[in-house]
């Protein structure tokens, strides 16, 4: 099977966020594989082990994203592709990203493309379904289990907590939800092997795209932090008194009772 994973390098949102020059400050911040994409990598490896074939991990980003790609290779993916936009593009949005991915996948004959349900930084959740539409593939979002038999695919997906059982066929795009699997940690031999696995670097030029074609449709005007919340009031005294005070505060100060 020809298996692809869409991987985004994301800011670890466990980190404290600050803003400088109108952007999220990323100096010294921790970057990770988007957690939902880890589920995608894990599932891709399992599908390959069960059905044969090859797992290729693809990311659009800058040079630094090589680290996350190497981690995916260390987990067990076979190949990685970094579409590096650093020198060519200043701005981009989901339209841009998908336009680039569409060009990349044009000649790939992918059987299945796995992505994350959402990226924890920008969090639009658009990339998977947008790409499916461009590639004219069916798309199943937020999957929690997948079973492939020939070209028939049985999927369970999470719909606001309900479980929907879906039947579809390859080629297919899915987006992964928490609960699909437990991503493995890269093993030491895995990390050693990953250093020698192929990591191809492309630019939009190599995909026959020029800047105009990928111009974003949206613009970020401003990034800001939520208004500093007044330090919460931790109530004191005996439980009875705390409860009385809470009810009174909810009624008179917060006005929610």
């Amino acid at each position, binding site marked *: 099977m020809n298996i692809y994973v869409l991987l985004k390098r994301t800011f670890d*949102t*466990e980190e404290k*966020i600050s803003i400088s020059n109108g952007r999220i400050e990323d100096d010294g911040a921790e970057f990770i594989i988007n957690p939902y994409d880890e589920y995608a990598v894990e599932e891709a490896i399992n599908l390959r082990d069960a059905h044969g074939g090859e797992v290729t991990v693809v990311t659009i980003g800058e040079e630094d994203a090589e680290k996350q790609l190497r981690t995916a290779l260390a987990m067990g993916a076979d190949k990685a592709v970094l579409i590096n936009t650093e020198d060519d593009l200043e701005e981009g949005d*989901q*339209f841009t990203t*998908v336009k680039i991915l569409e060009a990349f996948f044009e000649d790939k004959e992918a059987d299945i493309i796995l992505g994350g349900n959402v990226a*924890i*930084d920008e*969090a*639009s*959740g*658009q990339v998977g*379904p*947008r790409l*499916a*539409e*461009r590639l004219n593939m*069916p*798309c*199943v*979002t*937020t999957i929690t289990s997948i079973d492939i038999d020939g070209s028939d695919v049985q999927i369970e997906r*999470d*719909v*606001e*907590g*309900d*479980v*929907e*059982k879906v*039947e*579809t066929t390859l080629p297919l795009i899915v987006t992964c939800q*928490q*609960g699909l699997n437990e991503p493995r940690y890269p093993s030491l031999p895995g990390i050693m092997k990953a250093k020698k696995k192929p990591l191809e670097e492309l630019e939009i030029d190599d995909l026959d795209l020029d800047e105009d074609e990928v111009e*974003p*449709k*949206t*613009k*970020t*005007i*401003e*990034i800001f*932090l*939520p208004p500093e*919340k007044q330090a*919460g*009031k*931790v*109530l004191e005294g005996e*439980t009875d008194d*705390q*409860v*009385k005070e*809470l*009810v009174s*505060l*909810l009624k008179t100060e*917060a006005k*929610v*009772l």
Partner: protein
Amino acid sequence: MSKKVLVIGEAREGTLRNVTFEAIAAANIISDGGEVVGVLCGSDSLEDMGKEMIYYGADRVITVANEELKTYTSDGYGQAVLSVIDDETPEGIVMGHTSIGKDLTPKLASRLESGLISDATEVVAEGGRIVFTRPIYSGKAFEKKEITEGLTFATIRPNNIPAAARDEGRAGEVTEKSVDVQNIRTIIKEVIRKSTDGVDLSEAKVVIAGGRGVKSAEGFEPLEELAELLGGTVGASRGACDAGYCDYSLQIGQTGKVITPDLYIACGISGAIQHLAGMSNSKVIVAINKDPEANIFNVADYGIVGDLFDVLPKLIEEIKQMKVNA
């Protein structure tokens, strides 16, 4: 510049979700005196729901009824809505950022080669442009965005943009359109319902949420009692769901539902970032946790350090007292 804006409505158990009315309000801001046109897909008569959309501010509504649209599929709804878009050539589209909205709108935007702003919590008209605010980085920051070219297309987070007051005096046409829905590539074999009837968690004004600290399914009983007393509903952390104390349909957070109630009471929840991503926008947050260092206290307006099984019964009594006195 006035615009024609479509609102894709969404029903749950036969009634329109409140976020549909909020989407109409957002569409009215975008349309700037233009026309707001509702779209409804389903398998039965949608006339009454169409009228409801008009009472909440739509100018007219187009319904597409077809056996194939009984349950949502992205192919089925995609074809139906695209066909309406073809007829109407709107300049804007708004829908709720719900499970269906998240699945359908990127597909439409991609087909229409348009931008899409997902999960907006605010929409304002500012000097001739429409500015959307949306949370990013798990709610730790916000961004203001606009669409620079083509359709003004957005999904909105439930419970953030106030709906207009219902006005039965409003009149408008509800017309039926027939669409030949075919070639659905993802067949839904079965839906295992986990969600219970009653208040929709993402639209509830009061949510009493329990975490691993609730310790068992029975442990949720005082939470349920309090929720009922306050006309709200019960929610949970991933920890409580994974432990089997409650169902995943109650899960709040990045993986679960994103909610913005007026009052959120977290009981025995530590406050992991993935949980906060789903509730930190709540208007008032109360935390009850026996660990004074728990992260949830960092986002709480009011905190009680204590055992929830000690605090909750007392809180229930106190609120009952308050109601008696009122």
